[in-house]
């Protein structure tokens, strides 16, 4: 093979590699842009997590009727939300997922009281839910 042909083949492969890299970058960018946090359903109670804390220290919820918690995980760290009675009994349990993303959690009808919101991954992540 002549040196000129060899050089042109090499430069062609460099250009192809650059195109492939740009394509990967663009595609991964599109994927990231598609994973928005979304819009909470009407009437849902929004609870969000960031920097491994619940951003709301306390949220209000209706007693004696089912409702939805819209849980927004704002960081790329696994979180979930669990609603716990004062006695420690479970009321509702959300899935653990990485953010930025959001998931609804359906909570059954609960009696008027103060409940705890917890993250199973981070036991020190606490907030309260007041049902009234």
């Amino acid at each position, binding site marked *: 093979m002549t040196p000129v042909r060899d050089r042109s083949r090499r430069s062609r492969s460099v250009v192809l590699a650059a195109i492939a890299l740009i394509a990967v970058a663009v595609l991964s960018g599109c994927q990231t842009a598609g994973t928005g946090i979304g819009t909470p359903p009407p009437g849902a109670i929004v609870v969000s997590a960031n920097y491994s804390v619940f951003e709301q220290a306390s949220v209000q919820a209706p007693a004696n009727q089912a409702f939805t918690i819209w849980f927004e995980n704002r960081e790329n*760290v696994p979180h979930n939300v669990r609603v716990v009675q004062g006695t420690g009994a479970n009321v509702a349990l959300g899935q653990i997922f990485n953010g930025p993303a959001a998931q609804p959690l359906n909570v059954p009808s609960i009696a008027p009281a103060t409940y705890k919101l917890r993250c199973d991954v981070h036991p020190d992540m606490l907030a309260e839910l007041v049902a009234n």
Partner: protein
Amino acid sequence: MSVIEGPRTPVAIGLRVAIVVLTLATAYIHYTLGSMMFVFNAAGYVVLAAAMVTPLPIFARYRWWIRGALLGWTVVTILGWVMFGARFDLAYFSKAIEVVLIVLLVVEMFMYDGGPINVVRKGIAWLISIARYPFNRGTQA
């Protein structure tokens, strides 16, 4: 001073590399979990992984202690997860890494230190010698 205490066989080198890689892998997983507790846990793993391969005479002399500390750190991490940890895929993956890490550390203990029981004996003797040190020093003076 070599990183490996005994003869530098492929098995010995592979074992040490595997221990360091698994230690750093579980450290990274804990680091990604965010809170201070996990970052502290990850830092412990990183320090012990570095101590496992630091080619200084003092580190080589106390490698049995470092190996024991890494084993203890891993066991405490698993027990902490069993008692308080969340059950999800990444946690199971991390625990699988830690179980393999424990097995490899025990193998190294048999290779260099005469097994885990001998390490415990050595550790107790070392602690007693440290506790006695001020009294011995007083006697010498």
